[in-house]
């Protein structure tokens, strides 16, 4: 693709920005509406989980220039779907996924298939991302996001197909398994596991002026600490006995626990919360349950991983290892990765911290889950309101989306390699890459003021171009019993979230007698339009303000739309209003091939020879195997470490569970695989072996046994 190469070069010059001038690659997305509700008289529920771990090689999305190309995986990535239907037949699919974002094309294309098969259209499908920054990119409906959410740019329609197929499968299986159920909703506060990474803008809001949180810089309290859950159990209608099915929860936490120098697919903290909660529930009840965790108003909420180990730093400029000749030209300066030992230390300390954070969140979640078990009921009325909103120039938003220079340096705690680069392209363009300071440029009368656009006017005229950023936002309100879910495509800050909820409550008071126990705002749902800070926060142009594409009125726009929608929520027993799904267009940019293709003929590989090494407290298995495109996606584990004891052997670690790092270096048809397990700190020395498992979980190759100790 000649054209694309030219673009790549241009992009590089433009930085973070990719050219797409003239090539929109417009794609009209379907507008599937849901089937009319058909009452069964029962609350019914179904849940399903699907593995979406792609083969390595894709860019990790969410960290912009820091998002590395994946070399393998540490955890598997999943989609969890809960389909709920109330007694009147109101059906809703609540879906979460281990991705940084969900795009409108993923949402609409999945809904198109679901509307045909299980009657769930775009108006009853909430797909939201956990916001892990270690999932694949390249699937966005917007050209600019395909270019810049990862170091590795490009839009791959095959990744869209790959994901849509799996979203569809998750919801279809859950919907086809709808059975009578009971449910309960509730909340629990979780404090100390998150903190506000943008305290200065937070304290700029009049509602926090003079508060103890701001005077004491109590970042841990400047967050939305509400963990909201819907617990769902199956109901045996003959015996009236229930058994656990799973849960769907919302909690605000950025998916940035894993430092950006990571190169492995990883579901970050949300994955580990879900895994820990699942283990707790399963072992307490004896059932295999499925749990989903959506993200809340996480715009300015980071996981409590700071201060990070000093080894965690973005690449710095240095000379590449070119030969510095005494004549001729000087060497090439480039961003150089930190040394492997630093990278290892950074990751190891971060992994220990996020395991603890996830454990603590899961402890509270388990407490809530148990409590909800005593409140299960079949009377869970559900209603929904859906709307597609046009953004440019609407309801106080600016006409043109512009990224601020305060955004390009990354957020506090998630800095990019260019943070602090004032005077980019000096002396031609001013543009402080970093929060506040030179990112603030008051221009009275200008819609975006005081945002200084990143390399404006180059950005909007040449680099992003027309339709480069999102132009629509899909909003869904769903009542589930006593909870009102508001699904939005923004990353809403704590205070903006408070204001949105207050506006919705005020509208509800005018309209109905229903006073929801909690309004849970779901971020990163059914699309992605970046950040939603308050007007006051926007004024300081920190990362969140610089990322508010449509200017200072974004939070007000969200409040206005959602409180209008509240007025459409039916009162009494009336059904939900008809789902009007407006047609929308995706502009993903030119297609490129990034998802590795499986070989046409799977080679005969013969018996696998696995070498097991014990080094620096890690056990590493190495073997040659089929290429990842042949072995992935894959539901079951690829392998496991087994400890042999005097009494027998037991599984010590399985791939995909977060403790084993699996990498594959592909040749033409086979690949060199490594599975590396860091022995637990508490572990004494033991004798271990590695087993490569087939799809059914049977060992097809075993290494020799080796003694290994954590140092």
């Amino acid at each position, binding site marked *: 693709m000649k054209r694309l190469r030219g673009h790549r070069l241009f992009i590089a010059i433009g930085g973070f920005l990719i050219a797409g001038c003239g090539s929109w690659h417009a794609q009209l997305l379907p507008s599937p509406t849901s089937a009319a509700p058909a009452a069964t008289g029962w609350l019914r529920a179904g849940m399903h989980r699907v593995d979406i771990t792609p083969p390595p090689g894709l860019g990790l999305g969410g960290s912009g220039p820091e998002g590395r190309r994946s070399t393998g995986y540490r955890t598997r990535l999943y989609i969890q779907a809960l389909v709920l239907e109330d007694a009147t037949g109101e059906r809703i699919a609540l879906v979460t996924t281990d991705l940084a974002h969900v795009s409108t094309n993923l949402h609409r294309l999945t809904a198109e298939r679901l509307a045909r098969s299980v009657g769930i259209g775009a108006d009853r499908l909430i797909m939201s991302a956990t916001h892990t920054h270690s999932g694949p990119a390249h699937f966005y409906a917007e050209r600019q996001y395909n270019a810049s959410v990862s170091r590795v*740019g490009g839009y791959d329609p095959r990744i869209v197909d790959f994901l849509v197929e799996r979203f569809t499968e998750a919801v279809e299986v859950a919907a086809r398994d709808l059975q009578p159920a009971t449910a309960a909703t509730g909340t629990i506060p979780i404090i100390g596991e998150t903190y506000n990474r943008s305290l200065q803008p937070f304290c700029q809001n009049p509602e926090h002026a003079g508060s103890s949180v701001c005077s004491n810089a109590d970042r841990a309290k400047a967050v939305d600490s509400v963990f909201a859950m819907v617990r769902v159990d199956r109901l045996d209608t003959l015996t009236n006995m229930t058994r656990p099915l799973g849960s769907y929860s919302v909690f605000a936490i950025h998916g940035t626990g894993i430092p950006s120098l990571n190169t492995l697919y990883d579901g970050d903290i949300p994955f580990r919360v879900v895994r820990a909660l699942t283990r707790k529930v399963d072992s307490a009840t004896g059932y295999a349950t499925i749990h989903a965790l959506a993200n809340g108003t996480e715009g300015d909420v980071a996981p409590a991983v700071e201060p990070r180990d000093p080894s965690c730093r973005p690449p710095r400029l*240095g000379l*590449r290892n070119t030969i510095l000749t*005494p004549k*001729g*030209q000087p060497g090439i300066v480039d961003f150089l990765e930190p040394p492997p030992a630093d990278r290892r230390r950074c990751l190891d300390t971060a992994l220990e911290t996020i395991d603890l954070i996830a454990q603590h969140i899961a402890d509270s979640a388990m407490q809530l889950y148990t409590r909800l078990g005593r409140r299960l009921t079949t009377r869970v009325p559900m209603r929904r309101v859906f709307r597609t909103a046009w953004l440019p120039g609407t309801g106080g938003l600016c006409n043109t989306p512009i990224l601020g220079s305060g955004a390009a340096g990354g957020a506090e705690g998630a800095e990019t390699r260019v943070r602090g*680069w004032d005077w980019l392209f*000096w002396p031609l363009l001013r543009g402080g890459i970093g929060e506040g300071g030179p990112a603030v440029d008051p221009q009275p009368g200008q819609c975006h003021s005081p945002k200084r656009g990143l390399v404006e006017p180059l950005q909007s005229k040449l680099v992003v171009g027309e339709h480069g950023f999102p132009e629509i936002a899909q909003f869904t309100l769903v009542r589930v019993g006593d909870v009102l879910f508001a699904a939005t495509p923004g990353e809403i800050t704590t205070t903006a979230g408070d204001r949105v909820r207050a506006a919705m409550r005020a509208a509800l008071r005018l309209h109905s007698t229903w006073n929801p126990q909690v309004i849970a705002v779901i971020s990163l749902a059914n699309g992605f339009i970046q950040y939603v800070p308050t007007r006051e926060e926007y004024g300081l142009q920190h990362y969140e303000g610089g990322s508010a594409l449509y200017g200072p009125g974004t939070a007000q726009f969200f409040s206005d739309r959602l409180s209008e929608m509240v007025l459409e929520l039916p009162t009494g027993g009336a059904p939900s209003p008809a789902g009007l799904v407006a047609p929308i267009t995706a502009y993903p940019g030119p297609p490129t091939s990034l998802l590795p293709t499986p070989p046409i003929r799977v080679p005969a590989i013969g018996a696998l020879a696995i070498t097991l090494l014990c080094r620096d407290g890690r056990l590493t298995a190495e073997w040659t195997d089929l290429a990842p495109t042949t072995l992935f996606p894959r539901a079951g584990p690829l392998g496991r470490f087994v400890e042999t004891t005097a009494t027998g052997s037991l599984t010590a670690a399985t791939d995909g569970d977060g403790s084993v790092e699996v990498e594959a270096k592909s040749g033409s048809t086979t690949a060199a695989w490594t599975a590396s397990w860091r022995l637990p700190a508490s572990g004494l020395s033991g004798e271990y072996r590695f087993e490569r498992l087939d799809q059914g979980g049977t060992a097809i190759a075993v290494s020799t046994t080796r003694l290994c100790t954590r140092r």
Partner: protein
Amino acid sequence: MLTSTGKRWVLLFLPIAGVAHLPIHAQSSPARLSYVLNAAGTNGYHWRGIWRSRAPVIQWDGAAAVTVGHLSLAAGSWANLEPRSARAGHLSDLPLGTSGLSEWDLWAQGSARMRNITLTMGVLQSRYRRRGNDPEVTEAYGSVRVQAGRWGLGGTAWTALDGADGTFIEPAVTFYHFVNPLAGPALALSSTLRAGFQLGHRIPPGTASRTPGPLGTGLTHATLSTQLGVMHWLSRRIALTARSSVAVQWREDRATRLRGDGTRGAHLRFWFPLQLGLSLGQEARP
């Protein structure tokens, strides 16, 4: 007593032995071989404040290096070709009316890298085709290169061993306006201010046409250039490099090439080098 060749060998190994003794963590990493091959075209060949050709030239260089951990040993060759036949106004190193290879240099060096500092020491021998005119010159050189954020600071000192005398120093400071933060080609846009000073440096004039080097002590040239460098990987290990710059240069040609009487002449001149090359053994960008 050592012969002059023997002396050169000693001089070659001394700095490398010195570099090898710098306090650097021992690395267990295996030796890595790398090669570069460059061809450059410029609208003139200007060297330490002297015109060696005012007509367009083609310059090529090739080098090989072996790197173990932070240390590397390299050797290479550099050459200047004048495609047009030399005329008086070209101030060429070639006899009038001829074209082709005018200069052919050999060098060997040792380098050590510690974090953001690179130290290099080596020996360079410059050979001219027009023998008896420009003499063969052998120099030892030492350079330091420091990268501090977006600033690159560096300098090289050259000391004549044979064929000339004195020392020439060339400090430089570079500011990086932009470096590609995304995947794809390594790309940097930078501006460099470079100056050249001679400290008693003297390369004797040639006999036939007063082809001289700088004489005396002082500033010989100052150059401000803005440069775009690109390194694009053709495969995991092979990269294509391209560099282009626009430079404005002030130079004081105290040599006699411009003026037959050997008096000073100060000149401002734009300079547009364009370089294309291949680099082998360079790990692709992550």
